[in-house]
Each structure stands twice: as C-alpha cells, then as structure tokens.
C-alpha cells in the first residue's frame, strides 16, 4: 500500500534544515557548554534518517552519495591525527592547544585544537550511525 506522504515530505524539507542548523550550533557549543561532536553527529544522522523515512533510501543515496564506512575511517584518522600531533610537540598524548584570535565578524574568539578532534568524532558518529541504520533498513 502506498500511503500519501505529501505532508511528511513537505515538512521534512523544512525540518531537515532546521535540524542541520541546530546540529552545527550544538557542535560548536561543545567545548564550554553541553554539546560537541558526538551529539552534533547524532543530530545530523537523525536529519538524514528523517529524509530517508520521508522519501526512500535509493533517492537519498542519489542526493548524498557518501560511503559512510569511508566517512567513519576518515573521521577516525582526523581524530587520531589531532591527538597524535602532541607526539611531535613532545607533550603527553591528547594535549590540546588553544589561543585567542581576532576574527572578522566574530570578534575575539578562542580557537581550540580540540575542535579538530571533535570534527573527527562528528564524522565517526555520522558514519557509524548511518552504516547501522542503512544495514538494518536495507534488509527489509
């Protein structure tokens, strides 16, 4: 039975972007307040899953031709590389570096090397969540 999902699809087109924006917000909120790569990644994955529910998996695969396993691997490598940079500077593993910069529009902003690590985490979370959901979803 093919249900009429015009309402779901229309709402999804708007809501997906709201979720993605919120994911970015949560991601950057991560260092001093609750949030970060893990939650941001889960939110992003949930946006993609919503798209998959509203439309179907083949369509979404065409729009987002991402190999999620490769995405996971790249995320892992970014995270390890950030943590391993401390080996080059001869400080204990995982030591992070930060400083304050004057950026246009943002004003004085603190930039952390932990952000790079979090990007890795973000990619791993999106990759793993989507791999799991796709594997389960395709079995039907």
């Amino acid at each position, binding site marked *: 039975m093919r249900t009429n999902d015009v309402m779901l699809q229309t709402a999804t087109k708007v809501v997906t972007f709201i979720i993605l924006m919120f994911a970015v917000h949560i991601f950057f909120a991560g260092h001093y307040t609750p949030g970060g790569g893990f939650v941001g990644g889960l939110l992003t994955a949930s946006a993609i899953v919503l798209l998959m529910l509203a439309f179907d998996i083949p369509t979404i695969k065409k729009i987002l031709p991402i190999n999620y396993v490769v995405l996971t691997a790249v995320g*892992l490598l970014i995270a*390890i590389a950030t943590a391993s940079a401390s080996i080059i500077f001869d400080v204990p593993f*995982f030591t992070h570096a930060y400083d304050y910069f004057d950026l246009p529009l943002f004003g004085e902003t603190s930039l952390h090397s932990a952000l790079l690590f979090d990007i890795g985490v973000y990619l791993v979370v999106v990759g793993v969540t989507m791999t799991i959901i796709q594997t389960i979803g395709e079995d039907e």
Partner: protein
Amino acid sequence: MSNLVLFPVVIPLIFAAILMLFPKKLHMQRAVAIAGVVATLASALVLFSKVNSDGVQAVTLGSWPAPFGISMVSDMFSVLLVLSSTIVTLFVLFYSIPTIGMKREQSFYYPAVLFLMTGVNGAFTTGDIFNLFVFIEVLLMASYALIVHGGEKPQLRESIKYLLVNIISSALFVSAVAYLYSVTGTLNMADLAVKIPQIEAVGILTVIAVLFLVVFGFKAAIFPLYFWLPGSYFAPPMAILALFGALLTKVGVYAIMRTYTLFFTMNTGFTHELLAIIAILTILAGCVGALAYFDVKKIIIYNIIIAVGVILFGISQMNAAGIEGSIFYLVHDMLIKAALFLLVGILTVIFGTSDLRKMGGLIKSYPIFGWTFLVAAFGLAGIPPLSGFPGKLLIVQGGFEGTHFWGSLVILATSLLVLLSVVRIFIYAFWGEPVKIVPIDRKHYLSMFVPTAILVALTVVLGVGAELFMPFISDAGEVLLNPSLYIDAVLKE
C-alpha cells in the same frame, strides 16, 4: 612522560582506520594489515627495551596531573604481554591469509583484527580502571564483529549468547567501577593503591573486590562463569578462534592479576583464599571438559580454561615464586594456545572434520607436522625443558611456600590429565590406520604450516632459554609485589 607507551595502542588503530578505506582490495588489505602489526611489534620492542633500561614508563593523557587525567602505564608485566599478544597476532595473520577465505577478507576482517589488537594492547597498558573498561569494550566490539564474521548459522546462534554474556558483564563492570569510585573517590589505579589502605571500611571494599572478580571472571572464564566459552569459541573459523583463545581470556586474567596485586590487597585472607579455591575448581572443570570430548577444537578450548585456573592459582599465593610463575605461564600460554589452535586448524583442514574418531594414520604422510604437534602438546603439559615447565614449576613452588599445598598437588596431578587430553589427539590423529584425507596442495599446506611451526619454535625457545627470560619475568613480578614502584612511576612523573 613518555608517549612511547601509547604506540602499541595507537599504531594498530591508525592502520585499522586506513584499512577501512579500501575493503575490497585484497592484496592491499593483506599488505597493510601485516605492515601494521609489524610496526606495532617494532614499537613494542622499543618500549620493551626502554622499560627494561629505565623502569616503569607512564604518561598521563592531555597534560593533566596524574590522578585526574587518564594514565597509561607500561611496566615490565604489561609490556611483556603487549609483546606476546602482538607476536601472536602477527602469526595468526599469516595463518589467516590462506585459510580465512576471500569473502571474509573483503568484508573488514583485517580492520577487525587490528581493532581487537588496539583493545588488547590498550587494556594491558592502561593505568585507569574506567579506561580499562573502555579498552575492554573496544576489544569486545571487535570480537563481536569477528565472531559473526561470515555469518554462518552456528556463528549467529553462538554470537547471541556471547553478546548477552558480555553485555551483562559489562553492565556489572560499570556498576562495580561506580561502587569503587563512591568509596575511594578515584579511578586511577596508582591512586587507588594509595587510597585503599587508608580506608577503614574493609568489608565494603571486599565486596567490591569480589564483584570485580566476577566481572573479570566472565572475561577470563573462571569457574563457574566459563559456561559461555566452549560454545562461543567453537563457532568461528580457526584463525579467529586462535586469536580469541590466545588473547581475550588473557585480558580478563591480566585484569585480575593487576587489581588483586596492586590495590585489592586489604583482605587477602578472604579474597585471595576465594581466588585460590576458584582457580582450583576452574582447573578441575576444565580437565573434565578436555577429557570428555572427541572434538579437537573442544579439547583445546577446555585447555584454555585449565590454564586460566593455573595462572590464577599462582597469583592467589601472593609470593614471589607464585607471581613470577603466573607471569611466565601467562606469556607461555598465549604463545602455545595460538600455536595449538593453528595446529588443530591444519588437522581439521587435512581430515575435513574436527572429530577425532574419524582421524588416523597421519604420521606417514605428514611426519614433520606430527612431531611439531607432539612438541606443542608436551609444551602445553609442561614437560621439561619446554615452555610450560618453568612457569608451572614456580606456581607449584608458590603453592607449597604459601598456605595452599593442596592446590599445588591438584596442579601437578592435573598436568597429567592435560598431557593425556592433548596426547589423545596425537594418538588418534597420527597413529593407527590411515583414513582418507582431503588432498591439499603442497604450497597451501606450507603457507599454513610455516607460521604455525615458527610459533611452536618460539615456545621452545621460551622454554629452553627460560634462564634468559627469567630476569624480565622477575622484573615484572617485582612491580606486582611492590606496588610502590608502580605508584611512584605514575604519581611522581
């Protein structure tokens, strides 16, 4: 501060991530996986020489001061285990190339093995009890992937049991860690070793110690928590079984050894007595299983359980002989179990079955293989001068010096049963009337036999050259007997 401690943990992780990028390229997968393990082995050797010359190495992650950050600690005990687990993985990898099958190789077999290695090496290296949980989860995740790998029917059935048991024990682990934290206010192992003797509530600490014994006992397969092991280990192919048998239970054994020597020493009259009794029961239960089956895999699997009992009995004595014996036996057992699993793996390939009653007369067609098997079997049983002997001798001596002479007697008596259980394989498979065997070509046979034979040769070297290795073993035992060495290295770095 020495980041070197982390290399054997991080290198396999990097290589596993790289391997995930191109799962279908067969030759690249093999080459990169082997390169990863060789690089890990090299880093472990460098770390070993560093620990040997400069003593215990420690680093606390993220430049946090020691009890607050996560410490990674490498003493002689941990580095010996890292070294042996890496060697085992390397040879199992060589063995898996001809045996594991192309389909498995192209669906993330090698990344899973390297993730397993990350978890195992991490668990051996970490100096933080919660981080130990994390690394055990890493290795469990990888082992879940490996146990269902290929998705055959028995594998799927057994993996459900395996998952359930491990999820329950992981939940218990977190609860036990929470109890420990609420009593002591710290999770850093060195800091725990400082704080626990100052706490007067010995009763609650004893309960926590026993809870940890249950948690680690699930992983290490002690009596009566070993029920999941024979079935689950039986399902996956031989290369994976060899990895599991040689490494996974040893992580549980290591965790018991570390916690029961470093900080759960406030009530040894109860906890270590309990450990000794459980160890002996584990040995007896393992012997029953090892003699009861006619299946070569099952026989060796039950021998894992026996070895766990022997090692834990040595540790429960808390004297130099017992602890050194346990360390030696642990290293020996990792190598010999991997070797034996690979040997019976070849046996099942040749006969096309793992049932002993359908085997026979192989000594005429494969004489060298037969004698190699006999050497490994004698090594397992601990016949001098092979590698099982020095460890067992020290453990038995520890029992006589301690209060559990009856335990030593049981170990001596069961050694004969162990010998019987493996020699039975030799008698059934190599003596008697030759039966029809599966023809395999020479090259394929050699690609399986050579890595196995080298592993057996290594155990012989470990046994015959025990005198050479003893200084390292006593170094390792020294740290376990004197927790202050460990504590100083972490807290005063």
